[in-house]
């Protein structure tokens, strides 16, 4: 089941990419990407054939579905923090948002439970951000976008 699903996703992607290259109707400009889009299409068809052939051998895994749900629950906080991080860093500034993101990720994923040791994580985040600033801001002189926080 899983292999077939993967092959179908690959097939959809290939068709999408090929479509994106054929729509502009500039064969000269798009010849190279379209060549590879055709290659992707044939490879995904190959994957599909392989998956169908194997299905006879292997059983359908209900475990796969459970694993997906499990991962999603595990990763939901990261996705939320990550999304917030990427939305906020141009506003908050790089170092402030890095501090927040680091602190939140380490608190949510503490092995002793959520926010089990806020002071520890706060301190680690501060030290980490400071090192980050010293390397990128001072040593390498990278000019990061400001935002309202430094």
């Amino acid at each position, binding site marked *: 089941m899983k292999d077939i699903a993967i092959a179908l996703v690959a097939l959809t992607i290939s068709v999408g990419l090929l479509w994106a290259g054929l729509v502009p109707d500039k064969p000269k400009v798009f010849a190279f990407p379209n060549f590879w889009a055709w290659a992707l299409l044939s490879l995904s068809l190959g994957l599909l054939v392989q998956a169908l052939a194997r299905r006879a051998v292997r059983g359908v895994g209900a475990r796969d579905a459970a694993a997906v749900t499990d991962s999603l629950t595990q990763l939901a906080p990261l996705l939320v923090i990550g999304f917030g991080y990427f939305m906020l860093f141009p506003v908050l500034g790089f170092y402030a948002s890095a501090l927040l993101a680091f602190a939140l990720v380490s608190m949510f994923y503490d092995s002793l439970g959520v926010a*089990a040791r806020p002071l520890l994580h706060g301190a680690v985040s501060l030290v980490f951000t400071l090192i980050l600033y010293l390397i990128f801001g001072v040593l390498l002189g990278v000019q990061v976008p400001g935002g309202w*926080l430094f």
Partner: protein
Amino acid sequence: MANHSKAKTGKLAGLAALVVLIVVAAWGLRQTGSDGALVGEGDDYPDKPLSLTVAYGPGGATDLQARIAVEPAAEVLGQPIKVVNRPGAGGRVGWNWAVDSGGRDGYELIAYNLPHMIAQWTHEPSLSYNADNVVPVANWGADPAVLVVGKDSPFQTVADVVDYARAHPGELSVSGAGLYTGHHVAALQFQRAADVDINFLPAEQGGVQALQFVIGGQVQAGFNNLSDSWRNRDSLKILAVADTERSEFLPDVPTFQEAGVEVDDLSTNLRGVAVVKGVPEPHVERLAEKLPEVFRLEQVQTKLKNTGSGSLVLGLRETRELFERKTRAIKALLAQDDAP
């Protein structure tokens, strides 16, 4: 159980408090640091470091010269100028960025590269940057295009090249840094002036690769920077300079006009500093007054000379005239039927 959940709530509250604390502390820090920029419209400009966007990657001629040219800025301007590379798509990424999202407070400068920039916006009106929103401030360098051939090439003079191109229409392969660069402009001018048809190869990796193809014999000739060609003069023959007078670096090499082909200095790579329209006029004037002073410093001139690049320091008025003149000439050149 109740105890446990109480403890958990307490911890979450602590977490929230910590986050708030961090935000407030950071905000406070920011406030103390940023006031100046908002008030500093007047006399004390510049009162914080400036940045100069170079629209090419590190290591290229523009990047290197920009770093040399603005490095001692703090001595004259009172504040340093930091070079920031925003490369991509032949300069389009950096210049688009400057006009679309760059600041207009006078602290974000851009390095321009003529005639590349002008040829791009003339050919591609969809670009964000154009003659109306790029305000030239000061020029530091001029690097003419030269016609080069390999060391063992049968061509000895420009006339040899022209004769060959006449006898073999469309076959003479000539490399250059890319489409709509100075080299391409020189090639177009050459085609027109000598009335020949050549096979122009834009080297995808820029001028250095174009030069490598000439040295390696993959192409029969090339238009390239005088500076790079001069450095590699042991492996090349430099046939002509696309300028109105001979170069101090190459006193023995004739100009195209002397060689009988009407190619002028339109293709000369001019490099300097511009800002985006909207920067307060007093700031532009202050920059235009101080930057040429920086460029004229002896250390800058010596280092530029070391790299083999000619210097041409111009102030506000001359640079603006230069832009206008080039814009007109490029428009005329690209409007020709034989332009691609």
